[in-house]
């Protein structure tokens, strides 16, 4: 540390950027990180409750039962999907806040995993938002559409959001891997959170079985592929937000010390 060359120069300029005050340096970081829980709350309300996706309409319902739902609750679904498509985009700023913190975890690492995290998280917006449009389409003219068409649209929304999981697995694994390289005495992301993140990402592989079942634990409404996997994902969002938030003041203090003695 006594030798300036000890800095990874990339990280060096990330930290030691004397023109930027600490305030400017960390500006917007917290706002972006806070978008994670905002997204989660809004998504649970809009997509989950209003859109009747928590719990999902079972895959073994008949087309008529499903049509009944759309024809009764079309206004709730419209509102829910409009909200889900709006708030789903907040996954992006949240991802960016994590990216910023990840870049400073370990100055002896290159930025491959943080970049992959940003891309995977950014592209997660695609299934979150585009799957909603299928449900929204069903609720737009529920009386004119055939029950089988409504069923197809509802299926398609679920197949898209469930089966595009791997783009979300990539950032989850990346956060874990990057966090584990942390050399601090007290790491920014504790080891347990890193391992949880990796495990949670890999646990999504159970979704591979989802298209094969209409009922049981692997179906979209099944206890494993719905309740366990979505709770695991929601918990991941909260845990990572919490430690990202806690990391920001610590990084600010580190930088201040560094600037002070430069």
């Amino acid at each position, binding site marked *: 540390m006594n030798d300036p060359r000890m800095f990874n120069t990339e990280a060096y300029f990330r930290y030691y950027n004397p023109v930027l005050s600490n305030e400017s340096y960390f500006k917007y970081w917290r706002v972006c990180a806070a978008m994670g829980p905002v997204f989660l709350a809004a998504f649970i309300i809009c997509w989950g409750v209003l859109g009747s996706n928590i719990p999902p309409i079972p895959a073994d319902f008949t087309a008529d039962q499903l049509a009944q739902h759309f024809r009764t609750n079309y206004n709730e679904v419209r509102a829910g999907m409009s909200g889900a498509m709006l708030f789903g985009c907040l996954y992006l700023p949240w991802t960016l806040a994590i990216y910023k913190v990840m870049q400073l975890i370990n100055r002896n690492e290159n930025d491959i995993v943080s970049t992959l995290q940003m891309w995977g998280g950014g592209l997660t917006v695609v299934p979150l938002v585009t799957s909603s449009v299928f449900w929204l389409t069903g609720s737009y003219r529920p009386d004119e559409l055939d029950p089988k068409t409504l069923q197809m649209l509802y299926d398609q929304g679920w197949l898209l959001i469930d089966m595009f999981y791997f783009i979300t697995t990539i950032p989850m694994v990346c956060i874990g891997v990057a966090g584990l390289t942390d*050399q*601090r005495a007290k790491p920014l992301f504790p*080891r347990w959170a890193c391992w949880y993140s990796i495990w949670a990402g890999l646990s999504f592989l159970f979704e591979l079985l989802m298209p094969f079942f209409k009922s049981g*634990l692997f179906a979209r409404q099944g206890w494993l592929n719905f309740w366990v996997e979505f709770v695991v994902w929601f918990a991941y969002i909260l845990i990572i937000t919490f430690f990202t938030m806690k990391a920001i003041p610590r990084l600010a203090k*580190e930088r201040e010390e560094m600037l002070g003695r430069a």
Partner: protein
Amino acid sequence: MEHSTAPTIGASRDQRDLVSGILVFIIADLIVFGMLFTGFMVDRSKELAVYNQSANTLDYHLGLLNLLILVTSGLCVVFAVTAAREGRLTALRNWILAAFVIGAGFGVSKAIEYGDKFAHDIGMHTNPFYMYYFALTGAHFLHFLGGMGALAFIWFYSLRHAGAPDFRGKIEAVGLYWHMVDLLWILIFPLLYVLGLQWQPCP
């Protein structure tokens, strides 16, 4: 940047507590497997005949063989970890190699078993028992593959980095993981293969 006390980011962790970290992974895994086992028992109680009948089509000798393979391989890893603690590098490597080679037998036996099922057109949709059968053994198989990868990794890693301060943590983490693979089979075997045998209780 003159002489100064290093800020926190400079402090290097000598003990990378991989072990306590990987426990989270293992516990999360065991919770989900525990849920699957419970789901199996609950669903089984509703259709006892189907489950028992299907279970009887499984070859429990193969299941038992797999149990022995994994326990033996797990034992080799125990010896490897002990050797690592005592600094006996060659012994460590040989035990890891033994664990890997014996473990490979599990892959062979599983391939035979799956091949036989597919040859009889038995799949996940045959009935609920087989759904659980393929889900549990399949998920376990993926864990097994991950474990074999970890054994291979630690063997190659020991060639160059056996002296590194974090090596002990790494090998213990791999050992713990391999014991979990082992333990899961110890739970899967009686549930899938033995329960259905409907042994009569002794008089």
